[in-house]
């Protein structure tokens, strides 16, 4: 008898519990499904809200920019429109050349140092490496105008270099460095340890393994990081704004003042001449094309890497 009641009780409790659970679940189901429907619909609405301004931006960029990309745009230096010739804007060859020069110099400055630091961070576990890692991560989030201030203060004020391509490249290189360092570290860390161990087991010295095995395996990741760093640098206005000086000449000499595409957009958008304001859409479109090509190259490169390693 005693045994029976002890057995019965928990089952009875379970039965009332199940009833209560089912009751509340059924009573609230319609409301819960309604909330779910409303919220998921709202999410879909936000997708549309995101798409509209961005689509509008791209549409206007192409519609206004494409007609500006003429032969003159790529080959002539700028002219100042006048009342007699209000449409005489010339081209922006100086800015295109300047942008290319700035980024080539910046890459030469930043890529070797960035890759070496990234490799060091990935393969060392000391305090020095940890500190550098935090610095790189912090610098990666620093506003780009600060790179311009640094270049101005150090190169122009302290070293008296003057407005020049090299000063702008220096600012861009400081901007690119943390991006390259972080990408390289991740790429090297992603190299399977078995590869390293295989090299070491064959009797190779650690630095030989690093150079001959690890870095080649991480190369696609490193290259992807460098391309992304360049694609960020090429569109930056603020760092070069303070130090490259601008100018109407076609030049790529490191020590002469140059112009750059983003800088021309910034300056000419405020122009009183409608023809010059129209021309900047061409520059903006060209810049976006540059950036898209670089980003897509990086993506394709990265996916090729995955295919190879699978």
């Amino acid at each position, binding site marked *: 008898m005693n045994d029976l009641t002890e057995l019965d009780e928990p089952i009875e409790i379970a039965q009332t519990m199940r009833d209560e659970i089912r009751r509340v679940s059924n009573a609230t189901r319609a409301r819960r499904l309604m909330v*779910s429907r409303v919220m998921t619909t709202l999410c879909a609405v936000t997708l549309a809200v995101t798409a509209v301004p961005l689509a509008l931006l791209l549409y206007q960029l192409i519609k206004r920019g494409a007609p500006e990309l003429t032969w003159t745009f790529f080959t002539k230096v700028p002219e100042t429109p006048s009342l007699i010739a209000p449409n005489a804007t010339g081209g922006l060859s100086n800015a295109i050349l300047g942008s290319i020069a700035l980024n080539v110099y910046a890459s030469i400055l930043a890529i070797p*140092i960035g890759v070496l630091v990234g490799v060091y961070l990935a393969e060392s576990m000391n305090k020095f490496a940890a500190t550098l890692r935090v610095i790189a991560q912090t610098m990666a989030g620093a506003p780009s105008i600060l790179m311009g201030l640094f270049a101005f203060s150090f190169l122009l004020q302290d070293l008296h270099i003057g407005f020049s391509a090299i000063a702008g490249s220096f600012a861009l290189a400081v901007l690119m460095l943390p991006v390259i360092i972080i990408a390289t570290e991740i790429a090297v860390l992603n190299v399977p340890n078995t590869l390293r161990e295989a090299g070491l087991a064959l009797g190779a010295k*650690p630095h030989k393994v690093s150079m001959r095995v690890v870095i080649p395996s991480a190369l696609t990741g490193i290259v992807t990081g460098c391309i992304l760093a360049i694609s960020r640098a090429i569109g930056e*206005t603020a760092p070069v704004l303070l130090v490259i000086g601008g100018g109407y000449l076609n030049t790529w000499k490191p020590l002469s003042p140059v112009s750059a595409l983003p800088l021309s957009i*910034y300056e000419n958008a*405020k122009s009183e001449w409608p023809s010059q304001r129209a021309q900047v859409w061409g520059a*903006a479109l060209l810049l976006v094309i540059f950036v898209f090509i670089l980003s897509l190259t990086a993506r394709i490169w990265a996916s090729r890497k995955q295919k190879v390693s699978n």
Partner: protein
Amino acid sequence: MAEFSSATTSRSWYHYLLLTACVLFGAVSVGFVGSIIQKSLPTWLHHSTTLIGGGGWQSPSGPFGGLAMIVGTLETSLIALVIAVVIGLGTAISIVFFIPRRLRNIVATFVELLAAVPSIVYGLWGFLVLAPFMYSTIDPWLNSWPFAREIWGDPSQQYGPSLFLAAIVLGVMILPTFVAISREVISVVPDDLIEASLSLGATRWQVIRKVVLPTARIGLFGATFLALARATGETVAVALIAGGVAKVQWHMLNPGTSIASWIATEFGEAQGNEVSALMALGVLLMLLSFSLSLVSRWLVSRQRKLLARV
């Protein structure tokens, strides 16, 4: 993992090469911080209260008060962040869960490309397209609201560019960045967690709200801080569309300015004390950026500890 500081390898030339690069990078980062601080010292030593005060900015003699820029930076970037996070989160959720698989990769690629579009292009669009549109259409409508004068400000001061417009354009600008990262961290939430919650009778929204978003929260924090960092440091887009008026502005349709954009617009004409004051503004911006990065690192590591062994 190969440890380069081990005794057998510490003398190889390769090790020294890596170390040299690291020392160079360390020097650059120390120089970056030190050089800007050094040039700002005169202002900090003699006019520090003026700099963080609201006395306005009188070129070229002074006083140089930075309160307007600080307030403007906070106003624009916080409103932009709210816009980007609210819309971006819904967008990222929609991309991962609601749109067809085939379309998903295309949309994801597209969002990542948009995240790479240079800020000057967003600025140009805001300045030449949105500002006139705001002035002709949106501003009169907003000014017809009750208490419009208290919220939006005096219509006679408005001409298109405003803190509000800057906030909107910043929001649209950081939206792709936020969506790209959020989409990625949401899509790596393991499927079996989603299936487990569905198997307990959760609705779609409950799965997202109670399981997916909490599980992805570290990455979502990261995305939020990155977006905020981009918004606070943005220079040229704000310089074009905030209006460039150095006045503490609580009425959002009136023109204002931000720290970074004020440095960019004033630097060209600045001499002597003003350069130092602008460098001091740069130090403020640096402090803001570094503390953001510190807070995000702290939050992320705290969350990691909570989620340890997942």
